[in-house]
């Protein structure tokens, strides 16, 4: 990992302070009884990071912390409210305006639900051929078919011909997710966002799919943004981990560092609640009171302060910056 970083050219992906706010249609009743009209939901609220070629960034956090929205922003399924995303130094907005297909080739997404990733009316062959045709890969359909068969066999979907005529509902989740990864990788993207790619799969095949994703990404030197709420999986696959809370990154650093030596109180609580397979290991989870609030009407100070075991009065007053602690470690807490 570090040797790739030291090559130190322009990062493949640079995210600068992106925000995505949604306006609520209904009136919002705040905890203290005020009624807000057209309340803003700060789903992603100022996220910045860089990603180098071939690097794997894990994004973890509770449900509703904005990690999936972040993923959708990265592949431009949604436009950010503000902030910018640079791909190899070029603004994603310009890229997509200039050449949409080319942009789509550079960033790809693996979705959570493999059972619904493909049009149920299309056979696997049509799904692949259409994608290849769209991106003008291969001269004619028989050549494209050959490419597809080769790819399918390379990931163990054998015999490939038998898969081509089948429909998505005839395949298992693992097979579909392989096909989904394969289809995305065929476009040779430089960034792939995987939004909880294994959470809907059977536990027995999760490792296979993760390994396949990891290996194909390494093969093409593709950067990976791995969004998950499963800390141990994320630690296993990632070079770096970013922890999100209420639309912001609260801690980011090398995967092992964050997992073994969490600094931010939220990360500490999150990691300590992660089940270990070893029953003898010391295990005393930090209990957090309450639930993560909806990111409407954000408090002035640290967003985590109301639930933080270390919170002091000053935490609620001033906002926290993501501070650089050296060696790629960033923490958003004044107590650290």
């Amino acid at each position, binding site marked *: 990992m570090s040797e790739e970083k030291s090559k130190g050219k322009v990062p493949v992906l640079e995210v600068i302070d992106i925000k995505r706010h949604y306006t609520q249609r209904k009136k919002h009743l705040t905890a203290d009884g005020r009624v807000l009209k057209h309340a803003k939901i700060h789903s992603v609220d100022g996220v910045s990071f860089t990603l180098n070629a071939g690097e794997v960034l894990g994004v973890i956090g509770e449900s509703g912390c904005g990690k999936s929205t972040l993923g*959708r922003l990265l*592949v431009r*399924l949604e436009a950010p409210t503000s902030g910018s995303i640079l791909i190899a130094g070029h603004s994603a907005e310009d890229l997509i305006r200039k050449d*949409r*297909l080319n942009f*789509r*080739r550079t*960033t*790809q*997404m693996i*979705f*959570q*639900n493999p059972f*619904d*990733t*493909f*049009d*149920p*009316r299309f056979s696997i062959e049509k799904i692949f051929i259409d*994608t290849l045709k*769209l*991106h003008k890969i291969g001269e004619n359909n028989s050549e494209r078919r050959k490419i597809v068969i080769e790819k399918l066999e390379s990931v163990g979907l054998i015999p490939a011909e038998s898969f081509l005529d089948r*429909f998505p*509902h005839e395949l298992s989740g693992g097979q579909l997710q392989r096909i*989904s990864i394969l*289809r*995305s990788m065929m*476009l040779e993207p430089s960034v792939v966002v995987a939004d909880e790619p294994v959470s809907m799969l059977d536990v027995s095949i999760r490792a296979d799919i993760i390994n396949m994703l990891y290996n194909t990404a390494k093969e093409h030197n593709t950067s990976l943004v791995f969004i998950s709420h499963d800390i141990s999986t994320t630690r296993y696959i990632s070079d770096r981990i970013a922890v999100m809370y209420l639309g912001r990154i609260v801690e980011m650093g090398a995967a092992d560092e964050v997992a073994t030596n969490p600094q931010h109180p939220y990360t500490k609580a999150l990691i300590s609640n992660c089940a270990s397979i070893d029953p003898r290991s010391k295990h005393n989870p930090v209990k957090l009171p309450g639930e993560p609030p909806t990111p409407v009407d954000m408090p002035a100070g640290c967003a985590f302060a109301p639930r933080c075991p270390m919170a002091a009065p000053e935490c609620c007053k001033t906002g926290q910056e993501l501070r650089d602690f050296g060696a790629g470690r960033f923490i958003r807490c004044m107590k650290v």
Partner: protein
Amino acid sequence: MRLNKTLKIIKENTQLKVGCMMLVILFLAALLAPVIAPHNPNILSDDMVVAPNMKYWLGTDGLGRDILSMILYGARTSLVVGFTAAMIAGIIGTLLGGFAGYFGGRIDGVIGEMINIFMMMPTFFLILIVVALFGSGLFNVMVVIGLTTWVGNAKLMRAQAMSLRQRTFIKSAESIGESRMAILFKHIIPNGIFPIIANTTMGVAGAILTESSLAFLGLGDPNVISWGQIIQNGKSYLVDGWWMCVFAGLAIIFTVITFYLIGDGLNRVLSPKLRNLGKEVRG
């Protein structure tokens, strides 16, 4: 293979089975009208207002035309009007509804208002005005019926598109690089068309009824034989010659029931609960 599955589904659904059989009868009657009609429906004979007998099975009208032959030929008019008008309504409704539901935002706002306006309008009177102004040719009648009855289809398609656009495979198609237009025509419409198919089938019945009503009011195409026209002509003989109105009326009822049965049957077969069955047919 595919045909067998379709037949199986039709057999398993009573409405569809009965409806399809009735539709076959209708089609045969319309197609074979020149062969099976006992008389030329346009020839005025001397046997006027004759009650049903062995020569004129369903009697004759005030001008001596054979009612049975007129009804057989009238089936052609009704089916052509019904299908064309319903198709126009189906296509307009699908396109507008698809655009509104998938693109959302301002497009949805504009189309939504159009839908509201057409829903408020007393459609039949609009048709009356248009036909009175622009003439009552069959073409006019079909187009104007089609142009005024697409609202139901548009609302159905809009709802379908709104729910489909949240599905992963639409997001996946977007992220793979397909244009929004391509997604609308390749994924949204084909996946959301089922309720429109059922609704359009019922629309055929509605269009046939509307055409008959127009003809009954004397606004039908005078150059073609239609059931509504037979009833209009028979109206003045209602006391002495009940058969003129009754048999033409029965033909209308038969046709309307046919399309309602098929529409209802399709609705059941293509409903989400049974969607897999429907998918196999399409697959």
